[in-house]
Every structure is written in C-alpha cells, then in structure tokens.
C-alpha cells in the first residue's frame, strides 16, 4: 500500500491517536450502523463508510490536520475517531469526537479531545476552537463541558441539521490556569 501521509501520532495515558487506515474500516462500519450515528448525520452503509474513511485521510492532506483513529492501548482496539475537523461548509475549525460502541463512560473522548486541543493550540497555532454537538447528544455535550467549553450559539448544516456550538477555552484561558478547574 502507498504510504499514508505522515500523520503525527499522539499518545495519552490510555490512548494512542494515529492515522486512520483501512484497518479501521470494520469499526467505522459498526459505528455508522449503530444508533450513535444518529448524532453524526445518520447511518451509513459500508460503501458510504469507505468513502468517508477516504475523506478522513484526504482531509489531512487538504488542510494539514484532521482526525485520528483512537486506539485503546490496553486492547489495541479502535475506540473512536477524534480530532480536528474543518471540511468546506464547516463554520470554523472543530474538535470532534466520535466514540465507538463499548468505549463510552471511560473518559476516552475527553482524554483524546484534550490531546487534540493541545495539538491544535501548541503545534498548529490555533487561537480558538469549537465543537459541534447534536442537541440530543448529552454524552457529547458532557465531554465539551468537562473540557471547559461553553455554549456559544448554534449552527445549521444541510446534512447534519441544527447543532450546538461549544466554544473551547482559548490558549490564553488555559495558560491563565483556566484548566485547573477541569484537570
């Protein structure tokens, strides 16, 4: 196979954030066939998921950043797709987290999304970031809150519908100690 773009690999206490690859296809199919997909534009069949996987990788090349496949260190399984997302049509760069069935309730989304936020601020030089959350997706909103984000209006997308905009703590907020309350 051709080399995947040199997508940086990040490591947290319990997770490895690495380049999405064909090896993630089955896990992605399961996610997009599950009820969880209702919060991310609806269910997708295998053909659509394959193109979506290609899109995840192409996003990295088009923009120089993207989402990582998040691997649970203890099992080696793919627990989700989490990272930085800003395809055309997005209101502004987003930190997004799609956590797969069976990996909820462990703080994985928060752990990976916090690593992604650090990468966005420290490596890419972002000065702000949002997360888009479907109104009924309470688990996802809880992740945003846990990271210290605050509701900042809404955004309506043709395909994804109305989404809450959560504004993350800025790099200045974080360096001023804003994160202590959430650490």
């Amino acid at each position, binding site marked *: 196979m*051709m080399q995947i773009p040199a997508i940086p690999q990040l490591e947290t206490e319990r997770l490895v954030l690495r380049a999405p690859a064909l090896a993630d296809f089955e896990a992605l199919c399961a996610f997009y066939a599950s009820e969880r997909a209702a919060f991310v534009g609806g269910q997708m069949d295998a053909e659509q998921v394959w193109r979506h996987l290609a899109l995840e990788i192409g996003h990295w090349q088009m923009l120089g950043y993207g989402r990582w496949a998040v691997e649970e260190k203890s099992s080696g399984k793919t627990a989700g797709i989490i990272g930085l997302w800003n395809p055309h049509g997005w209101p502004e760069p987003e930190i997004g987290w799609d956590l797969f069935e069976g990996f909820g309730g462990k703080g994985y989304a928060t752990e990976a999304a916090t690593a992604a936020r650090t990468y966005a601020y420290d490596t890419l030089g972002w000065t702000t970031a949002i997360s888009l959350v479907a109104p009924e997706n309470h688990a996802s909103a809880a992740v945003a809150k846990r990271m210290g984000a605050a509701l900042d209006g809404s955004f309506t997308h043709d395909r994804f519908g109305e989404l809450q905009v959560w504004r993350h703590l800025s790099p200045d907020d974080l360096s001023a100690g804003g994160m202590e309350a959430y650490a």
Partner: protein
Amino acid sequence: MSFHQIGPKQAFPAAVAAPRLTENYTLAPILLHWMGEIHAGRCAARAKGCTMTDERKPYPRLVSKRLMLISPADPEFDANAAFLNPGSPRFIDAAEDPDSLWWSIATIIGHWHLHGYGLFAVVERSTGTTVGLVGPWFPKGWPEPELSWHLMEPGKGKGYASEAAQCVLDWLFGEAGWDSIVSYVPEENDASIALARRVGAQPEKPISFRLQPAPNIRAWRHMPPPRVSGPQAARGLLH
C-alpha cells in the same frame, strides 16, 4: 475472464520501481521540482511544518505529448489551487451544494492512500493548468476498478481525455501489471462512447449496481495490447 489480478496493495511499488521510457510517455518516479512542470505551490500542511508524505516514495507521474498526469495525493500537488478555484466543475458524485467539490477531492486523495492508485490530475503541460481527472477509480461497491475520466470545461475539445486515458492505460498494462479495466459509460453519452472506442475498449453488457454513477450504463472493457512474440507469430503464419 480474469479481473482483479491486481490487489490494491501490490499495484504501486512495482510500478514505481522501474521507470522506463517508451515512445509515448515517460513513467517517472520523479524527484522534487522535476522539470519545473508543477506550478502549484507546496501543500498548506508543509507550510505549517507538517510534512505530509515520505518523499523517498514518490507518487507516479505520467507524461504524454501535451499532458502530465500527477496524483493529487502527491505532496507537490496543490489540490486546493488546482480544483477549488471559483468556477471549477464538479466531479465524482458531487451534489449540488458548493461544498461537495471539496469533499469529493478529499475523498479522491484518500482513495490513493487506501488503494495505492486512483484518479490522476491531468495537467496541461504548456500552461500548468489542471484540466481534469483521469484514472482508475474503485470505491467500495464498484464491481471492479473503473477507468474514469472527467474533464473541466477548458480542457474539452482538444483530445485530452483520450490522450490521458491512453497514458493511464499504458501505465496500468505496461508498468502496473493490470490485466483489464472497465469504463462504465452511459448509453446516451456519445462523446464518452467515442472516447472508449478511440482507446480500444470493447463494449460488454449493460450493467447495473447499486451506486452506479448514472442510469443506463454499459461496461466497456480495456485490455492490454496483444503481445506477439517471434515463435507465436511464426506459428500463426504456419497455421
């Protein structure tokens, strides 16, 4: 018939290992800034200090008389500049909304990374302008890899589609070791049918599959040119 001889994982490295010159084109695993033909800038990622690709493994570039074909996944190729200027046409199942072209191009780039091959950007050598996309396309749900061609408006009417398609066919059959590839052509698309004939494809049966790109399509099969070796040719004469 035997198709699918080429697994996605074996198509590419062999193809770039042994560059050669032929009468019609040069297959060149070319180094950076090769011939100065790429006017596109470096990818945005690199400007931010994030090198996207291992440059020791260059992507293939094919050159014909008037065209250069380059993978849009090549880090030297600026897909944003080439395809996303105002007025650019739509490609590949793009819907009507203006954002869908970006999504399509990103998907086309990802196809290269997942398969090791994909649609080449077709660059007019005299101007450096990208005029289309031509190459093998094999998303999940396709019966087999398809040689697909899409020309932007400024590239039409010049014979570029057949020149690029022939160049890709020479590469697939001569370098990458493919046995066969089809094109799915709508029955009412006279221009595409003429193009398929021009590059030597033979019509097969009408075909339908769930995600087919248009109604009423027929498979047109491209095959490698027959090889005539000395002894076989002699036997042919005797019989």
